């Protein structure tokens, strides 16, 4: 009975920082290059080469500190974490251990209808390792060291998460924040953001159980699958009278199962010690303060602004703030026009996003079309054209086929808003409708819809429906 069991989860998230160069060398920090193209003598671990710290990484760590409510430490130390692996030519990873650059942060995530505070123990800077490719040759591994030395920020949460959904919400909030402050590209497929999941189970209200760590999950789907599988695996062991062994697990994406990874003969011992090649990092309050303005508005700030200043519906506001580029596009349209933000928002999350999705575009690609879009929205909100005509013209505007006002003329979609002309059409439409007019006067609202439809048809769909409605009511009430 898994009903009595609950899971306790802590996450270690590795975020690749979006710097131009690596953490300790000036090689390019770039995905997708030719094998070993971005490797110099520091990256390849040549004896006698000295690491020099990229201050851009410190700046990004400080920004993250502000965004995730961390204490930003003025004193931090790089240490060596020693282990052997072919994709780690130095024989050690330079990381931070006893004195990380960030400690004691938190973020709030959605959990059901409520918000939940997830505490974050620490975040530290470290080097990424290279890549081993096992599937080219049956007997050999191929090693590409391009990724060696790429700056990572490892963000370690407390075990405050208690369901797969919470983990997904936590991961996506982190991703959103890191992308907002422009320190990580958030591309999980390319490994820019990956998670190690620490999971244990316990009967509700009891002490923490023994945890297992599932390594290197790089998609929301796999994170969810791995958690659900591992939860059940641990319960089955305990229910069968067994005990959980503390283990490092791998998630097999083809079977959806977790399995133990490291050999258990000897436990790992990383023998951390301060890297003698690197002095401690001392930051002044001035250096830290200087970074603060670059943090900018965070998703929560934007959400509050959209609700309070623009009176958007919460669901719509949330869609817009999902990614910074959405919010940028939205705010650009507001600043460039006097169309009501609420009206812009409705069209943005409706037809405009649908167009982007259908044509597989980047949101950013519309940044140079905002003027045309708001011109079109102006025509709709001023009743120059109907909503329906707006929907017809929008894709043409987004495809750059012409200016909205020209398109309206060319396509003959201008609305008839001349009340004299409309009155004539309405009077004609009411001829011979005595029976229906009586029904209306008897209280049937459905007849009004019928009349509006008839008049619209007579204008070939170009009559302004609001105006038709108004004149019709006046006429009918007078009869």
């Amino acid at each position, binding site marked *: 009975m898994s009903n009595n069991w609950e899971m306790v989860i802590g996450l270690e998230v590795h975020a690749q920082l979006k*710097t*131009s*160069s690596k953490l300790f060398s*000036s*090689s*390019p920090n770039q995905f997708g290059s*030719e*094998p*070993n*193209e*971005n*490797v*110099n*003598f520091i990256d*390849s671990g040549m004896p006698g080469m000295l690491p*020099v*710290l*990229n*201050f*851009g*990484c*410190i700046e990004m760590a400080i920004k993250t500190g502000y965004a995730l409510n961390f204490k930003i430490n003025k004193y931090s*130390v*790089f240490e060596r974490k*020693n282990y*052997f*692996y*072919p994709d780690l030519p130095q024989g050690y990873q330079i990381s931070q251990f006893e004195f990380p650059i960030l400690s004691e942060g938190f973020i709030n995530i959605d959990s059901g209808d409520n918000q939940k505070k997830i505490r974050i123990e620490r975040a530290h800077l470290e080097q990424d390792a290279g890549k*081993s*490719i*096992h599937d*080219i*040759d*049956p*007997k*050999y*591994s*191929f*090693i*590409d*060291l391009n990724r060696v030395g790429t700056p990572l920020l490892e963000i370690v949460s407390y075990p405050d998460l208690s369901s797969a959904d919470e983990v997904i919400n936590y991961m996506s909030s982190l991703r959103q924040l890191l992308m907002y402050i422009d320190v990580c590209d958030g591309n999980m497929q390319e490994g820019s953001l990956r998670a190690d999941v620490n999971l244990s189970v316990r009967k509700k209200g009891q002490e923490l159980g023994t945890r297992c760590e599932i390594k290197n999950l790089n998609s929301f789907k796999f994170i969810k699958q791995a958690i659900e599988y591992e939860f059940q695996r641990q319960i089955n062991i305990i229910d069968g009278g067994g005990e959980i062994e503390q283990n490092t697990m*791998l998630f097999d994406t083809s079977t959806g199962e977790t399995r133990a*990874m*490291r*050999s258990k003969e*000897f436990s790992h*011992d990383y*023998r951390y010690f*301060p890297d003698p090649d*690197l*002095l*401690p*990092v*001392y930051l002044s309050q001035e250096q830290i303060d200087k970074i603060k303005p670059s943090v900018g508005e965070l998703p929560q700030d934007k959400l509050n602004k959209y609700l309070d200043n623009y009176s958007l519906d919460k669901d719509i506001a949330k869609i817009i703030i999902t990614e910074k580029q959405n919010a940028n596009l939205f705010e650009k349209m507001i600043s460039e026009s006097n169309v009501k933000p609420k009206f812009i928002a409705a069209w943005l999350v409706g037809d405009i996003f649908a167009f982007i999705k259908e044509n597989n575009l980047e949101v950013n690609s519309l940044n140079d079309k905002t003027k045309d879009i708001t011109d079109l929205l102006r025509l709709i909100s001023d009743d120059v054209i109907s909503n329906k005509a707006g929907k017809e013209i929008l894709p043409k505007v987004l495809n750059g086929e012409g200016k909205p006002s020209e398109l309206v003329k060319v396509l003959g979609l201008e609305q008839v808003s001349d009340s004299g002309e409309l009155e004539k059409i309405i009077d004609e439409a009411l001829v011979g409708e005595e029976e229906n007019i009586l029904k209306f006067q008897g209280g049937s609202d459905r007849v009004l819809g019928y009349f509006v439809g008839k008049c619209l048809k007579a204008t070939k769909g170009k009559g302004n429906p609001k105006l038709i409605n108004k004149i019709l009511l006046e006429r009918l009430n007078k009869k």
Partner: protein
Amino acid sequence: MSDIDIKRISYLAKLKLPSEKEEFYSNSLKDIIKWVDNLKKVDTSKTEPLHNVTEKTVSIRNDEVSKSNCVDDVLSNAPERAQNFFKVPKVVE
């Protein structure tokens, strides 16, 4: 002084130790540790830990790229090379 687990130490150091040498190296390491343990004679109960004697901060550089274009030099140390990859005996964990 704690005992020396020479098997574990050789594993961590990735060194293969013939079994007849285990005792010899175990004793050598014990001697080294005994010598270092002399430091324990100093009373440090009132001393703050010192992580670095210079109290200078780390050297930094700006986030700028310089490409070395030295893939051939780097790969000249490879045990074997396949195109521009290092080729090593298969290691899968």
